[in-house]
C-alpha cells in the first residue's frame, strides 16, 4: 500500500489561502519576478505545495528577499537560492544545470539575453 485510504480534494482550500490579501500580493510579486501569469503560478503552487507551505509563502518570500544572497549576478537574476531553498519551486539539481548553462551563455552573448533564456528555462522547470 502506497496511497492513503481517504483523501480530500484540497484545491479549493489552497486557492482560498492564496487569494487572501497578503498572499495575493506575494503571488503577484513572485509571478512578476518569474515573468509568468498569476493564474499559472497559482496553479503550480497549489499542485506542488502543501497547505502549511502556502500559508507560509509570504514569510518565505520576505526572508528570501532579505537573505537570499547568492553573491553572483547570474544566480541573483535567476533566483538560485530564492527558488530552491526559500520557495522550493525548482529542485537544486535542475537549478544548478540552468545556472551552469546560463553562466556559459553569458560568455557567448549579451548578459540580458542570456539571463532571459535562463529565466525561460526556470519557468519551464516550474511548469510540469
Amino acid at each position: 500500500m502506497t496511497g492513503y485510504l481517504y483523501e480530500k480534494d484540497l484545491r479549493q482550500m489552497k486557492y482560498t489561502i492564496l487569494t487572501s490579501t497578503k498572499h495575493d500580493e506575494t503571488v503577484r510579486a513572485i509571478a512578476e519576478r518569474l515573468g509568468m501569469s498569476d493564474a499559472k503560478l497559482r496553479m503550480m503552487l497549489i499542485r506542488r505545495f502543501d497547505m502549511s507551505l502556502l500559508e507560509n509563502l509570504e514569510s518565505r518570500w520576505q526572508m528570501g528577499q532579505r537573505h537570499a544572497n547568492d553573491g553572483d549576478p547570474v544566480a541573483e537574476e535567476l533566483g538560485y537560492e530564492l527558488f530552491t531553498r526559500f520557495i522550493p519551486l525548482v529542485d537544486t539539481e535542475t537549478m544548478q544545470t540552468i545556472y551552469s548553462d546560463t553562466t556559459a551563455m553569458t560568455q557567448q552573448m549579451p548578459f540580458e539575453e542570456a539571463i532571459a533564456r535562463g529565466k525561460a528555462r526556470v519557468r519551464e522547470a516550474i511548469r510540469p
Partner: protein
Amino acid sequence: MKKTVDVSIPLGPMHPCWKEPVRLKCETAGERVLRAEVELGYMKKGIERIMQGRPWQEVMFLAERVCGICSVVHNMVFIEAMEKISDIAVPPRAAYLRVVANELDRIASHILANFSYCYTIEHETLAMYLLNTRETVLDNLERLTGSRINTAYMIPGGVRFDLLPGDAAAMLADLAKVEEEMRRHTRIFETGPLIALRSKGIGFMSREDAIRAHTVGPTARASGVEDCDLRLRHPTYRELGFTQVTRTEGDNFARVMVRFQEVFQSIDLIRKCIDTLPEGPIRGGGFCKAGETSYAGEAPRGELTYTIRTDDYGRVVDIAIRTPSVMNIEACAHAMIKDAASIADVTSTFISSDPCIACNER
C-alpha cells in the same frame, strides 16, 4: 506518490497527543520518514472576515478569540496597533501592568506546551506536575484581570483594572511557589534518561533552515537565531532590561528547555514590574483615528503581526493577522520531521514546536 515510499502514514486529524485537529501525512521508507505534509482546515474560523467592518470595541474581543492559549497577547498587539494608528500614549503604570498580564499568559502557555511534550513522550507524571503548576499561574491571571482565559484586560490608552497592594503581595508569594516547583520540574526534565533518549538529537533544525522558513519564538531561539525576540524592541521591556534566551542544539530538548528558561525569565520580569510599579493613573485618554499600520508583538510562540486599516469612525476596514504558528508548523513539517529517523518521533517533534492550530486557522 514516489515509488520509493513503503507506506504513507496519516497522523491525525484526531490524535490523543494533539490539542487541536491537524493531519500530518508522512511518507516512509522502512522506519525513516522521507517527507511530511500538513493538511489544515479542520477548524477554520474566518475570524479576520468577521472583524472587517466592525468597530474596534468589538474587534478587541474578537482578537482574543483567535487563540485561547495566548489570548492576552492577541489583545495586547491589537490594542497597541490601534494606539500606534491613533497616537495614544499609555501611562507608565498601565504599561507595566500590561507586561505583568502578558508574562503571566506566556508562563501559562509555555507550561502547557511543555506539558503536551511530556505527555507525548509518555512522561505523564511530569506532565501532570506541570499542569498543576499552571493552575496557580492562571489563578494569578484571574487575580489581575478577573478572567482566566479571555481577559480583555487592555484597552486603548491603558488597562481595565489596577493591581492592588494586597493582590501584588499574594501574586509575589504565588510566583515564588511557581518558581520553586518549576525548578524541580526543569531538573526532572534535564536529568531524565528517558527524556534524553526521546529528545536529544531528535527533530533537529539548523539555524539556516530556521531563517529560511522565518521560524519565530522559542522554536527559532532553540536553533540559535539571535535577535528574534520582539520584546528586545518593546520600550517597556527595554526599561526592564530584557535579554533573549538562546540555545544552539536545535533539537526537541532545546526547544522545551528554551521554554522552561523563559518561564523563569518571565517570573523575574513580573517581579521587577511589581517592585518598580510606577504610581499614577492606569488609563490615558484618546480617540481611535483613521489610518493603517502593521504592528508586531512577541507572543509565547513568536512574532505576532497585525496589519490593520481603520476609518474615521474607529471601524476596522481591513485586517490581516500573521500568527507565529504559520511559520513554525511549516518549518516543523519541512525541516524537523523531514528525514526523521523514526516515525515514532514525528508526534513528539511536532509537539515540540508548540503548534497552535487555532492561531493558524484564523
